[in-house]
C-alpha cells in the first residue's frame, strides 16, 4: 500500500540526501505553514499533509512522517506548529500509539505494515491500545497465557487481557500472545496487531477503587488475525514486547520542571489557604514532603540533563519509585489536613472518566487513584529489583521458570 492522492494524503515531497539540521527544519516548517494555513485548513487534512511533509516525527525516515533528522530536533518543530495554532493529533488519547506502538512498528514492521499503520496513527485518526497484562501475568509479563493458534489462513486468538487503557477508543491493539506453550515461557511468544473491531473482541470497562472505569478488560474469543498483522518472527514476541516497553519510559524534557508541581502542590495550597487546620505536627510533615518533592524534582531535572548530554542514566526507575510514594503520601496528608472534608467523597458511581487532569479532582479521589502509581508501569518492588540488579550489580533473584515449558509452570 502506498500513499496516494486518492486517499486524501499529500504526495511525498522529494527530500535532499542529507538530513536537515535545525535551521533547515525551521525553514521547512515555515514553508509548510505558508502553504497550509492552520486556521483555514481542515484539521485532518492539515495533519495528513504535515505527515506527508515529513514534519510529523522528523527523526523517522522520509515517507514515514519524517526526514531522517536527529532525534532531538522534534521539540523545536512541535513548538513552531503549536505557536502557529496548528491542530493537535490527539496526543493524550493516543499516548500508547504514539509512544509505544509507532516505534515498535518502525523497528519490527515490514514496509507494507509501516505504510498501513503509521500515517493514521500519527494523525490520531486511529487510536491504539496495548494488550499485554493478563490477570495471571502482571509483573511477570512473559507468563501471558492468551493463545494464538495457526488455523490455515490466520492466527486464532483466545484469552483475556487486563489494564488496557484506551481500549474503548482504540481501532488497533498491539498484543502479546503465546504461540508455543511447549516452549520455555520467554520463547513461546509472538507479537501481533489486532483489529479491535474484529469479531470476538469484547471490551469491558474495569471498575476501579475510585468508582470509575478508567481501564478495560479485553476478552478475545476466536479472534482471527491475518499473518500480515504479525510484528517480528514467530517466537520472537518477547523481544518485540521488550522493545515496546523500553519506549514506555516517560521522557523527561530539558526544560525546568515547576517547583511544587505534582501532589505536593495541592497539599501546600491547602496549607496556605486553611490556617485554622494547622498544627505543629502537621507542619513538620508538610515541610518534609515539600523537601522530598523538591529533591525529586531536582533529581528528575538532573536525569533530563544527563539524557540530553547523551549519558542515559538508570535513575528513571528511582524517579518513578519516588514520585509514586510522594503522590501517595501527599494526598494522604492532604486528607488529614481537610479533616471532616477529607472524609467525604463526591461520587462512587461507575462511569468512564472524562479527563486525566488529576489536579482538578477531589482529594479523596486522588488519594485512591494514586494507590495505583506504585503498581502501574512496573511495581515499586520490581523497580527496586531493577535498581539492585542492573545498577548496583547485585545477584538476580532466583527463578524457577527458566528451563521449564510454559505449560508446566505453577500458576
Amino acid at each position, binding site marked *: 500500500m502506498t500513499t496516494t492522492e486518492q486517499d486524501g494524503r499529500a504526495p511525498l515531497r522529494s527530500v535532499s540526501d542529507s538530513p536537515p539540521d535545525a535551521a533547515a527544519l525551521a525553514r521547512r516548517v515555515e514553508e509548510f505553514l505558508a502553504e497550509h494555513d492552520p486556521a483555514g485548513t481542515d484539521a485532518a487534512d492539515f495533519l495528513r499533509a504535515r505527515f506527508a511533509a515529513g514534519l510529523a516525527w522528523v527523526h523517522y525516515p522520509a515517507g514515514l512522517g519524517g526526514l531522517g533528522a536527529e532525534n532531538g530536533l522534534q521539540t523545536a518543530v512541535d513548538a513552531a506548529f503549536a505557536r502557529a495554532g496548528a491542530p493537535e493529533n490527539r496526543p493524550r488519547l493516543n499516548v500508547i500509539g504514539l509512544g509505544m506502538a509507532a516505534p515498535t512498528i518502525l523497528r519490527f514492521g515490514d514496509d507494507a505494515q509501516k505504510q498501513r499503520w503509521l500515517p493514521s496513527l500519527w494523525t490520531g485518526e486511529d487510536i491504539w491500545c496495548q494488550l499485554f*497484562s493478563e*490477570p495471571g501475568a*502482571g*509483573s*511477570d509479563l512473559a*507468563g501471558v497465557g492468551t493463545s494464538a493458534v495457526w488455523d490455515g489462513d490466520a492466527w486464532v486468538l483466545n484469552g483475556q487481557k*487486563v*489494564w488496557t487503557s484506551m481500549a474503548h477508543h482504540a481501532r488497533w491493539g498491539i498484543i502479546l500472545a503465546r504461540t508455543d506453550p511447549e516452549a520455555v515461557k520467554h520463547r513461546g511468544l509472538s507479537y501481533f496487531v489486532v483489529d479491535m473491531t474484529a469479531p470476538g473482541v469484547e471490551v469491558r470497562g*474495569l*471498575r*476501579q*477503587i475510585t*468508582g470509575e472505569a478508567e481501564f478495560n478488560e479485553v476478552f478475545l474469543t476466536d479472534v482471527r488475525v491475518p499473518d500480515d498483522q504479525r510484528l517480528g518472527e514467530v517466537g520472537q514476541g518477547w523481544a518485540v514486547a521488550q522493545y515496546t516497553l523500553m519506549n514506555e519510559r516517560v521522557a523527561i524534557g530539558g526544560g525546568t520542571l515547576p517547583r511544587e508541581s505534582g501532589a505536593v502542590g495541592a497539599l501546600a495550597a491547602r496549607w496556605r489557604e486553611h490556617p485554622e487546620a494547622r*498544627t*505543629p*505536627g*502537621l507542619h513538620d510533615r508538610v515541610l518534609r514532603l515539600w523537601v522530598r518533592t523538591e529533591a525529586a524534582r531536582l533529581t528528575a531535572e538532573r536525569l533530563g540533563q544527563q539524557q540530553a548530554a547523551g549519558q542515559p542514566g538508570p535513575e528513571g526507575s528511582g524517579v518513578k519509585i519516588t514520585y509514586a510514594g510522594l503522590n*501517595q503520601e501527599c494526598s*494522604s496528608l492532604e*486528607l*488529614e489536613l481537610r*479533616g*471532616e472534608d*477529607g*472524609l*467525604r*467523597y*463526591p*461520587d*462512587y458511581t*461507575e462511569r468512564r472518566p472524562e479527563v486525566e487532569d488529576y489536579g482538578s479532582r477531589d482529594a*479523596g479521589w486522588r*488519594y*485512591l487513584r494514586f*494507590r*495505583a502509581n*506504585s*503498581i*502501574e508501569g512496573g*511495581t*515499586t*518492588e520490581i523497580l*527496586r529489583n531493577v535498581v539492585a540488579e542492573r545498577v548496583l550489580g547485585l545477584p538476580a*533473584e*532466583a*527463578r*524457577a*521458570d*527458566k528451563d*521449564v515449558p510454559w505449560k508446566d*509452570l*505453577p*500458576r
Partner: protein
Amino acid sequence: MSAPATPETGDLLYSDVEDDLRASVRALVEKQAPWDAVLRRTDTDDAVDTDLWKRLTQEIGVAGLAVPEERGGAGASWREVAVVAEELGRAVAPVPFLGTAVATALLLGTAEDELLASVAGGERTAVLVVGATRGAGRPVPVVERQGAGDLLAGTVTAVVDAVTADVLLVPVSATEIAVVEAGADGGGDGVTRTTSESLDMTRRLTDVTFDGAPARIVTGADVDHALQVGAAVLASEQLGLAERCLADTVAYLRDRHQFGRQLASYQALKHRLADLWVAITQARAVARYAARCAADGSPDLPVAAAVAQTHCSEVALLAAEDGLQLHGGIGFTWEHPAHLFLKRARADALVLGSADHHRTVLADLVDLPA
C-alpha cells in the same frame, strides 16, 4: 516535671468468654455480611445493614454488653465490646456499633435508664451528635437552645452512625445533653438529616440540622469520657481490620506465582509482612489495654485511649495500604475487597481524632509539653 507513674497493666489476654463471643459474632457476620454483600450494599441507598444489626443486637446482644444487668444490659464490660469491634472491623460491617458504643458510654453516666435499656436491647439506636473527627480533649461544639423552651437550632456536620439513629444525643452545654427523638422515618419534628457519599462507603456521614427540634435536657453526661471509650472501641475495630488485611495478603501471596515462584517466597515481601505482624501484635496490646482501662474505670483511660488511637490508626492504615499494594493490580479493582478496608482504615485514622490530635493530647497527659 517528671516521668509519669506506671499504672497497673491488668489482664491483656482474651478470656474464654471473649473467645466464645468472638466466634458467635464471626459466624453470624460471615453468613450475613460477607465482603461481597457488603460491597454490593455500597451501591445502594441502604447504607446500613439493619437486618444484620437486628440479629447482632437481638441474638447476641452486642449493644448491651457494657450495660449492667440491672439497667437492662448483659453485665459484661467494654472488654467484650472491644472483641465485637474487632470482628466487625474485620468484616467492615455496615452497622451502627461504634456510635452505639459512644452513646452507651454517655448514657451510662445519666439517669436515662429507660433509653439506656432500649439501646442495650437493640430496640432503639442512639448516637452522640458530634462531628466524626472530634476527639476527646477538645471542647465539643454545642447546638444552640432556642428561647425558653427546649427547642434546638443549628447544624452538626459529618456525624457517624446517624443515618438510622432513632435518638439523637446533642451536646447543648459543657455538661448538658439534649435528647431528640429523630423519628422512625429519619425526620422527626425539626430535624433534617442529609447523608452524603463518604470516603468510607461502609460508614457514611450525616449532616444533622435542627430547626426548632423539641428536646429533653439531661445532665450527668461526660462527653469526653464517652469519646475516650469510643476511641478504645475504635482501636479494636482497627486491630480487627489490620489482622484481616494481613491474613488476606498472606493468603494471596502464598497462592500467587510470578517468575515460577510463590510471591510469598520473596524476602522483601516476607520482611514487610513480618514488620506488619509485629506492628499488629503491638496494636493488639494497646487496644486490649485501652479496653481494660475502660472496663475497669481506670484513671489511665485518657492515656490508654490516646495511645491506642495513635498507634492503631497508623497500623490499620499501613495494613490496608500495604495489603492493597501487595495484591498488585487486582487490589485496585472495585470487585476485590481491598478497597473496602483501605477506605475504612483511611477514614478511621481521622474518626474520633487523628493520630496528630491524640499525640497533642498525650503531651499534656504525660508531661511532655510543647
